């Protein structure tokens, strides 16, 4: 079957198998930030935006993205780099495997709620698992980033 969608701002048309998962589709297109983790819809590693909403690309068919916009970390370079630096400053990523999914979902949170409380951050990121850290580093990084934004982006 043929699908047509916007991937990271570029319109593409591809012939796909009906049961191709979105994660496999975007990885075939070179978006290697999207990782396969738990395969049970529980870890958040494979987070992408489908029409600006964060979803698990391991649990949605590529066919469902037909006519829609898909964004991966590769499509958010500047925004992701800016926030990612604060995560790195805290040494929060450790092995780094969860980082792309965590950054995608954190960006979704900041877009939806630019001034979240700690509880709201924990709630929003509950679907992103990190097996290295206790999430404290990520939380510190997020708080530091939000403070930086409040100060108008100056360190």
């Amino acid at each position, binding site marked *: *079957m043929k699908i047509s969608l916007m991937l990271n701002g570029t319109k593409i048309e591809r012939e796909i198998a*009906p*049961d191709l998962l979105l994660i496999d589709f975007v990885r075939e297109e070179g978006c290697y930030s999207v990782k396969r983790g738990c395969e*049970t*819809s*529980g870890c*958040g590693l494979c*987070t992408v935006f*489908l029409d600006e*909403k*964060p*979803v*698990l690309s*391991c*649990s*949605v*068919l590529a*066919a*469902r993205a*037909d006519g829609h916009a898909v964004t991966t970390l590769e499509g958010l370079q500047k925004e992701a780099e800016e926030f990612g630096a604060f995560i790195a400053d805290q040494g929060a990523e450790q092995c780094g495997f969860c980082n792309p999914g965590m950054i995608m*979902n954190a960006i*979704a*949170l900041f877009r939806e709620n630019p001034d979240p409380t700690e509880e709201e951050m924990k*709630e*929003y*990121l*509950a*679907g*992103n698992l990190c097996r290295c850290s206790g999430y404290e580093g990520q939380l510190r990084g997020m708080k530091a980033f939000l403070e930086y934004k409040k100060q108008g982006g100056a360190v």
Partner: protein
Amino acid sequence: MLKIKNYVKAESLEQAYELNQKRSNRILGGMLWMKMSNAQIQTAIDLSGLGLNEIEETDESFRIGCMVTLRQLELHEGLNTWFDHMMQNSVKDIVGVQFRNLATVGGSIFGRFGFSDVLTAFLALDTEVELFHAGILPLREFVTMPRDNDILVRLIVKKTPGAYAYLCHRNVRTDFPVLAAGFACTKEGVRITVGARPKKAMLLTVSEDMAAKIREGVCSEEEIARIAASLAKEVPMESNLRAGKEYRSHLAEVLICRGLGILQERGPKE
């Protein structure tokens, strides 16, 4: 691994219903549960192009399309205002935001899953199910029906003034619930649902005189504890990996007691 041979984005409910009569074909909801199976599907039927992803609010009810996501339920201001944030509380611990942006109301209700927070919550409300072929029937009737090849089109939730609450216990946040309970106190009485027992949610009712006392806020703590103990005994429990049946029975008593306390505190709404 899930295998799908053909994919059809339905252009009408009639077309979807016709296709769904073949046993090897399947309607797609959020497909989060289906994806975990080893099913071999001849034709996957996608309803996402039929405008069933909206929550429509009328003077009498909320009409919730089968493709509405759990995240939409969570954020809907009207539902939260009317039902004391019951829907929000019932879905907020279901995995994460990314999961809830995919999981659909239709998939959750049609599956009649034992672990379903969504079914437990809607069953406590005055909810009807609209099926394409069988028409409109109460959700309490639908949960007892065997699975067939009909299509769940939408839920219709009546705007009944009252006090509402949702409580659950999880071993770990984002896991399936060990036990879930929905509560509604309206002019018609007090309805309690207990789900994840671990079988699917069941409905309990409080006696008329006690319901009247709860509505008026004059039920003593001892009376509430007695009602909770007696209702908890009515709920058949089973054991699974998450908890034993004795623990679940104890938990039911605790949650019912707390829930009735919340209803009484919130008082009746006109």
